[in-house]
């Protein structure tokens, strides 16, 4: 399991996370197999592999269980190669939506509230809010994958990750609205502007949203806004 934390150390364009997966599986494979069998097992796990790093845990656990069955001469519904091929893409999509698209922005916005108050606890808050569920998922699902085998697929399906990701994104958007309002409130106070000017921020942010959806990059927006600010204060 600890080796799984370094899944992407050897990420390559050719077969993506293949070496990382084998690195995680290698001690178990060496224990299960010898000689030609071990060589074949290594070759099996050097095939192309790509999934969300936190979702590799259950795939590893189930793969380990399937390898044990193979070693014992038992057959299951699906062999380990097909299981990996079938699950890596959907688990990758789930992980991207839930962790990168949901949990990470949520943790960031919560931490930003602390940062805006000038608290150096903000980084700690970020790390804790994000990593408690992250490590729980990694450890528990690896263990459950090993214990339940292919039944783990139903377990993960039962969690309803896509819906959970949507709820988290909605929560993040609401918190973002509050954070932006607080930032604007601070600005109007510091610059001695009437509060009503703060309402102008809403259409400006919507304009930014529109431009992003039309393909404008964050960097271009940053530079444009910086130039506009310099021009306005300069004039």
């Amino acid at each position, binding site marked *: 399991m600890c080796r799984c*934390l*370094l899944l*992407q*150390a*050897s*990420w*390559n*364009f*050719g*077969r993506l996370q*293949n*070496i*990382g997966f*084998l*690195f995680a599986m*290698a001690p178990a494979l060496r224990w299960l197999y010898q000689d030609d069998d*071990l*060589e074949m097992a*290594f070759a099996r796990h050097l095939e192309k592999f790509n999934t969300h*790093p*936190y979702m590799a845990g259950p795939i590893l656990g189930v793969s380990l269980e399937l390898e044990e069955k193979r070693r014992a001469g038992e057959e299951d519904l699906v062999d380990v190669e097909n299981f990996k091929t079938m699950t890596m893409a959907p688990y990758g999509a789930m992980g991207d939506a839930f962790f*990168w*698209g949901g949990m990470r922005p949520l943790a*960031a916005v919560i*931490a930003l509230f602390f*940062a*805006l108050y*000038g608290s*150096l606890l*903000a*980084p700690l808050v*970020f*790390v804790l809010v994000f990593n408690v569920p992250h490590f729980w998922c990694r450890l528990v699902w690896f263990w459950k994958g090993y214990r339940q085998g292919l039944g783990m697929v139903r377990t993960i399906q039962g969690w309803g990750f896509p819906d959970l990701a949507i709820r988290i*994104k909605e929560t993040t*958007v609401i*918190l*973002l*609205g509050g954070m932006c*309002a*607080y930032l604007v409130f601070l*600005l109007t106070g510091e*610059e001695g502007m009437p*509060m009503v000017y*703060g309402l102008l921020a*809403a259409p*400006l*942010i*919507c304009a930014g*949203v529109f*431009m*992003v959806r039309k393909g404008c990059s*964050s*960097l271009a*927006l*940053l530079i444009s*806004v*910086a130039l506009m*600010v*310099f021009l*306005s204060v300069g004039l």
Partner: protein
Amino acid sequence: MFLFELIAAALISIIAGIDRTAGPQIMLSRPLVAAPLTGLVLGNGMIGLEVGVLLELIWLAWVPAGASIPPDDTQIAVGATFLSVVFTEYWKADPTAMAVFAVLISCPLGRIGVFFDRLARGYNDRGNSRLLRSVKNGVLEEVEGVHLLGLLYFGLSSVLSFLVIVLAGTVILLNFYPLVEKLLLMGSNFLKTAFPLIGAATIIGTIRLGHTVTLFLVSFMSTLLLLWYF
């Protein structure tokens, strides 16, 4: 003294850079974590916190899926914090103005991180080819070595990105900061607010849910009115 600070920041750039892709991804690579950490080590955590606030949301919505490599906001954060702390001390400058300028010049320079990241992955490609040949020939002991060498490649790519940002940033700061200092002092509050708002717009623009903008506007307006009233 400068050398000590550079080495300290370079070490953080390596650790945070490895966490970004090759490591356990426990968010040490995020600007809101890497920048204050850099600032604390260099003796000014608050500047690091400011840099982190400015940068955190900008590329947060960019999902590192598959072969997609986002701009290296980790090295931008560490580099901009280093430049801000050193030059604020050197010129006794306004820390907010310096942080804003350092972030503005570091953001385009951060694109170099994508180049070095690709190089690291390219070297990993060679390792992959070598490992496939070894396993085919029955040599099975190289797995760990090839895999962990990837940490070295990603670490090197991180520190090289950091050094490019710092060196180029130093040249730009020395030549242009005195020219724009007055504009920065007048506009730093606006820019300090604009950066996270742009980041928020980017996140909302990327979240493709049916009522995202409505939710945001309702929350924004109600919070602003509540703050105004109280």
